[in-house]
């Protein structure tokens, strides 16, 4: 298959809108401040990390399709447009066919909760304007409409481990010539419902929100800008069914990823976040790793699919800025998959 290059990255995160704020927060490595989120029926609020309000209203919100869109669409579109950079105009002009792959776990939960609440109160008055925005693929559809692209567009649902599957799907589309470029986005939005659900399993987790995006292109160095990062390898998926199975899957994936990483000059972007029972297998597998590491979740919170995207975005960005030559990302999902991916500065490989 063709070589697959990362031509651009983008992020919206609790650190702020854009790669500048993201980079700075990850560089500092200090967990961001926690906010409180009201949980109806409880006196004690939930602890979360939200994407802060934008300094100015993003221009893309002027598009008619985005008038009613919920935060997940805002996050996804912002990250995607940043990753696409100047190519967004080429796509709008019809000069490039863009594939869109949106990966979510919780998805459009704000409007889903709101619409179901309306339904329980009185279905006769439940809003027909809200319902379409509850559908998993609404954000990807809005992005497609904004960019005027009619090429293939998937929304993938799964646990964070599935984000790397999105990269594989993109590589397949590029390889098959279905598209000239493909943006892969992991995005989520916060809601008390999601934060409340995770609280049933652990009090340590701080749920976050936002999006990360990678713009992939195929061929012989298709980008003329700073696109010198190659997606060199994506593992198969270790599917697990329970906690013990997950630990085995994490160890197996780590073993393979370490073999690919080769030496301690390789950057490891891990999924550790400060929840012992989730972190332990990965922490144990990489315990004696002496090379550089980044742990975006520790800083930004558990952004579910957005977190997996942030791991990849950080890896690609650190390579693009010449900080390292190779990076490995291990994404250990919560209740489905463990996978890893390898990125390299400008050398050959296959996905």
């Amino acid at each position, binding site marked *: 298959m063709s070589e697959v290059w990362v031509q651009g990255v983008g992020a919206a995160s609790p650190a702020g809108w854009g790669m500048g704020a993201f980079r700075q927060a990850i560089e500092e490595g200090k967990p961001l401040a926690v906010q409180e989120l009201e949980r109806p029926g409880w006196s004690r609020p939930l602890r979360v990390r939200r994407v802060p309000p934008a300094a100015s209203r993003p221009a893309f919100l002027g598009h008619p399709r985005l008038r009613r869109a919920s935060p997940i669409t805002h996050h996804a579109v912002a990250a995607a447009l940043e990753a696409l950079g100047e190519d967004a105009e080429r796509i709008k002009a019809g000069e490039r066919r863009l594939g869109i792959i949106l990966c979510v776990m919780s998805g459009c939960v704000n409007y*889903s909760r709101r619409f179901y609440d309306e*339904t329980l109160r009185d279905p006769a008055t439940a809003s027909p304007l809200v319902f379409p925005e509850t559908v998993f693929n609404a954000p990807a*559809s809005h992005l497609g409409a904004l960019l005027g692209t009619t*090429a293939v567009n*998937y929304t993938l*649902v799964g646990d964070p481990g599935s984000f790397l599957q999105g990269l594989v799907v993109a590589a397949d589309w590029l390889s098959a010539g279905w598209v000239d470029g493909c943006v892969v986005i992991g995005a989520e939005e916060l809601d008390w419902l999601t934060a*409340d659900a995770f609280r049933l399993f652990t009090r340590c987790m701080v749920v976050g929100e936002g999006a990360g995006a990678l713009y992939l292109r195929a061929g012989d160095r298709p980008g003329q800008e700073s696109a010198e990062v190659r997606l060199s390898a994506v593992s198969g998926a270790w*599917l697990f069914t329970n906690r013990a199975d997950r630990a085995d899957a994490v160890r197996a994936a780590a073993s393979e990823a370490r073999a690919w990483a080769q030496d301690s000059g390789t950057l490891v972007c891990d999924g550790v976040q400060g929840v012992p029972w989730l972190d332990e297998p990965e922490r144990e597998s990489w315990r004696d790793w002496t090379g550089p590491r980044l742990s975006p979740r520790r800083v930004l919170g558990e952004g579910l699919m957005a977190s997996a995207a942030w791991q990849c975005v950080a890896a690609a960005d650190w390579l693009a800025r010449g900080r390292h030559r190779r990076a490995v990302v291990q994404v250990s999902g919560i209740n*489905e998959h463990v996978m890893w991916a390898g990125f390299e500065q400008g050398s050959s490989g296959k996905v």
Partner: protein
Amino acid sequence: MVTALGLGCDQNAAGFRAGRTAFRPVTLFDVSRQRTRHAAEVDLPAELPGGRLTRRKEARLDRAGRLLLLAAQEAWTQARWNPEGLIPMVLGTTSGGMGMGEAYYRQATREPSRHRRQPVRVVEYQAQRQGVEMAEALGIRGSLTIIANACASGANAIGHAWQWIRLGRSERVLCGGYDALSQLVFAGFDSLQALSPTCCRPFDARRDGLALGEGAAVLMLETEASAKRRGADVLAEICGYGASTDMHHLTQPHPQGDAAVASMTAACAQAGVGPEAIGYINAHGTGTPLNDSAEAAAIARWAGARAAGLPVSSTKASIGHLLGAAGAVEAGVCVMALRGQWLPPSTTHEQTDPACGFPVVARPQDARFDYALTNSFGFGGANASLVLRRWS
């Protein structure tokens, strides 16, 4: 295959061949304040073929997971695959275990301090859990990809699995789609006034909306070489897949069906056939005024002169709109029709909309044809078409 017509391919084939419909008053949730009160509910069996699932896990399964498991067990048994090695799975759904999510929300708001059963609901609500539990029940391992492209999800899943095989990533892939009726989705379509207050009549001049259903279909795809090596009974060949995006509106298709033309054209190009080779179209045909007129326009544009002699039907007239399962179930219907050489009808059809430049199959009939095309179009402009060929 599981639909309101029955459990398994045989019951469904018999239902379609007899021209049955399967709608009845909704019993799964309160619809007393909705405009429409009918849907095509599945009668789930008391006992599930749980396979390797423990009784405890089986008892926890959401309704959607049960539908998926029933379809998967039938396909697995029929295909006689060896569970050794990795078997990738690609599934389509729109709402996963929404019923569990609804139960979670009701308890979380009405009894905020009561947590009994809530952790199970949180887990089982998530779409990936139905796939993981299906894999566990069958005793298989491999990657699980879940496509949630609204009503095109099932067709996308099959097309993606087919592409996976064509790219040489695997010799075999388990694929399909599933969705269960849920209150949120039912109320959603009702709020859009998309549900028919009378009955679902695709391509009929008097059509006034869709009817919801539920179900699942699972297809076991493998390379021809693998099938021959195993001496497998091949049911049909998938030979084309096209996908496109309609930017016109979040919930309404382009009036001339531009993206539908693109997906049908792409699927046929991959199959290496033109409209003249297609012997039957299983249309998306929801029965809403806008969908059917756009799809009719698209079929007319795409098929040209061939349209006048090209039989088209929508099996949603019998089983309702299965949303994320629709594309998979309808592909399964095409497989059965190709194998048995019959055309499934739009059972409720009476008076063809003059906009349809093609014959609508209103009664079950025998036919001789080698290629079938199935369309699935969803919210967000997700369009997918599959071309299937009779195996001989």
